[in-house]
């Protein structure tokens, strides 16, 4: 049961005596020391491996830092000004946005459908839950290699289409299709995660609510709309935020399946372009500016989505 912090009243403040003051300061010191023992290692790791690199990236983004050219100088906001006139970066933003929309919607919807189908007891359903979750535990590189073979010009998918008289489709070579193919592969891999989260949500819905709704004459769709869907709000929040972040940082699938192509930038996400710019073209200052912009976009989008979806949870 949640505790409403607003109902917790502070104790009446009595007159502070010197002995009580010493005791209180001892308690504070002890609490700080305990916090130090248990919290400091975590904070140290977080500071070293998250905050410091973020701060360093921001600093690099204000310079022309190139690790192969030691003459680094401060360039102010030049990198940011250049970014918003850079067609390649703007294309990567568009690619990332399309990927994000697909990746947030498709696995969410499909995951909900599959979870509802599998929300039953028995070995058959348990087996299928496992089957749907398998792609999630596989390395994205493995998944990418397998799908690259399946979607090749002479791959299984095109062969199967050939049997029904459909000519081969350039799933990964047609610039107008490649991004959707990659998004489909990523959505397929994320589906298992959504299914598991929705299943957990479905299983936490009290059966009495369904009984009550049935007694009130609610049809199956009405029961879903008025009972299941509102109570799945936390699951929807988790799935949406996780999918959003996964889509924004998409790199490994792109690297293995298309290498950003076919052609220039058709599937190059911001994360992919950032790495290419930083580690192949060596412009790490400029790449850091891309990373900072991406960080701001992801943080803002996540915060907005989280706020909107959590408000829905609170309204229940």
């Amino acid at each position, binding site marked *: 049961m949640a505790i409403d912090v607003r109902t917790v009243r502070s104790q009446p403040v009595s007159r502070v005596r010197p002995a009580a003051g010493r005791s209180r300061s*001892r308690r504070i*010191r*002890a609490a700080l*020391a*305990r916090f*130090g*023992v248990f919290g*400091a*290692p975590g904070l*140290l790791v977080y500071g070293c491996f998250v905050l410091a690199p973020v701060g360093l990236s921001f600093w690099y983004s204000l310079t022309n830092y190139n*690790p*192969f*050219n*030691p003459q680094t100088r401060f360039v102010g906001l030049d990198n940011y000004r250049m970014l918003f006139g*850079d067609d390649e970066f703007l294309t990567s933003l568009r690619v990332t946005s399309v990927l994000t929309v697909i990746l947030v919607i498709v696995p969410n919807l499909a995951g909900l459908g599959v979870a509802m189908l599998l929300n039953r007891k028995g070995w058959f359903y348990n087996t299928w839950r496992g089957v749907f979750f398998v792609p999630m535990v596989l390395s994205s590189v493995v998944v990418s290699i397998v799908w*690259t073979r399946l*979607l*090749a*010009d*002479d791959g299984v998918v095109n062969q199967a289409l050939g049997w029904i008289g459909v000519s*081969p489709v*350039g*799933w*990964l*070579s*047609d*610039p107008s299709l*490649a991004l959707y193919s990659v998004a489909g592969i990523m959505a397929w891999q994320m589906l298992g995660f959504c299914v598991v989260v929705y299943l957990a949500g479905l299983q936490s819905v009290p059966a009495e609510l369904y009984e009550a709704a049935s007694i009130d004459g609610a049809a199956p769709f009405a029961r879903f709309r008025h009972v299941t869907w509102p109570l799945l709000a936390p699951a929807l929040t988790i799935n949406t935020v996780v999918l959003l972040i996964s889509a924004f940082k998409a790199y490994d699938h792109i*690297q*293995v*399946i*298309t*290498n*950003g*192509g*076919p*052609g*220039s*930038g*058709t599937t190059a996400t911001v994360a992919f372009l950032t790495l*290419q*710019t*930083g*580690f*192949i*073209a*060596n*412009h*790490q200052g400029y790449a850091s500016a891309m990373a900072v912009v991406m960080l701001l976009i992801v943080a803002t989008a996540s915060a907005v989505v989280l706020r909107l979806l959590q408000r829905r949870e609170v309204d229940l």
Partner: protein
Amino acid sequence: MPRTRTTAALLALAMAAPLSACSVGSDSSSSSGSSKGTQEITFLTFETPNLTPQYWDAAIKRVTAKYPYIKVKRLVSPTADRTAYAKQLRASGQLPDVMIAVAPTGFAEAGDLYAWQPSELKDFLFPGAGAINGKIYQLPTNSQSIPNVYYRKSIFTAAGITAPPKTYAELLADCAKLKAKGTTPFVVGGGKDAFPTVLPLTGTVGTDVYRKTPDWMDRRRDGKVKFAEPDFVGALKKVGDLASKGYIDSKMVSLDYAATEQAFLKGKGAMYPMGSWFAASGDKSPIKNDIGVFPWPTDDGSELMPVYTGGGIDVNAHAKNLDAARKFALAFQLDQTNLDASVKSDALFPAIKGYKQPSDMGPVFTETYDLWKQAVKDQAIVKAFAWETGDDALLPGVDAKVFAATQDVILGRKSPEAAAVYLDDEWKKAS
């Protein structure tokens, strides 16, 4: 109070533990190596259908048998682009001690690489190949002709083609015949490896740009020429025309290097523009006697061969065991058995004085090697565009843009003119 003191002591211990762990770890690692007299070096390799893990392990073992005190930790690049991987390793402070076929541009200027001394290069045929500011950072171990056009003799015969083309017009006529027979004339891939896409362009730039202006890339670096000038655009146009006429199947650009090679060997196309290293795979295949080779043809039929010399080992100037790294590198590159193995496994042409290739080489290698030898003899050599690694190399990162632009032209996403302008823009960004 005692409890607070105990907690504070625990806190101090917790904070100090990682520091002490670091110092113990680093001491132990350095002392363990020296106490046994062994010197460990890291060696960045890459694996391809030709260069298997077994090939690398055996080659390393031959050198460490000569220098038992050298212990080699082999690293493998996750993709064919080992230069990009080396940059990532460098960024995290893990630049390997020894790296093979990693383009030295950028690393050398930053002072990361050991500059080979003339006395160390005395056994090399072209000791000045790939120089950066007059110094050699990558051992000029082998030459490669890029591209050759490998073709299936049986498919040519079936299409009524009796001899490989000598001129570019004959090549187009042969493509028309092949297409009329329902055969895709060229297998050109790319996929995640990207580089197979650029081979036709390396051919057309060789015949149409470098032949006329051998130092074109030096001039591009000096800003005296641009991509968006008639000669280079013409070279791009030739590639675009091959695609627009259906002589290159644009669907194949999704194939990675290994899949592209398989597509040719399985007869998915009649011709395969590829570097001389393909000869090794060709000779291993059951259809080796059905594979022929000719150079990318010039307009007038005169002899021309784009060639790259270099591709050897770079040594990290800051290697902990620099002497061992240098010794290993030279021994690896000059070992007769290793050279023979590189010829057999990757069809390299060792540019080592007095080297003679094994007598039992297959027909594809022999034919490819003979073409190269003839071109060297006739001085019909130009540099191989997009493969240069010295002062005349593309700027860092631009090679990936060249691959992408070539794909755009093949896919019809960009006109040759637009692709050339794009390359000039990318060049400017990379400068």
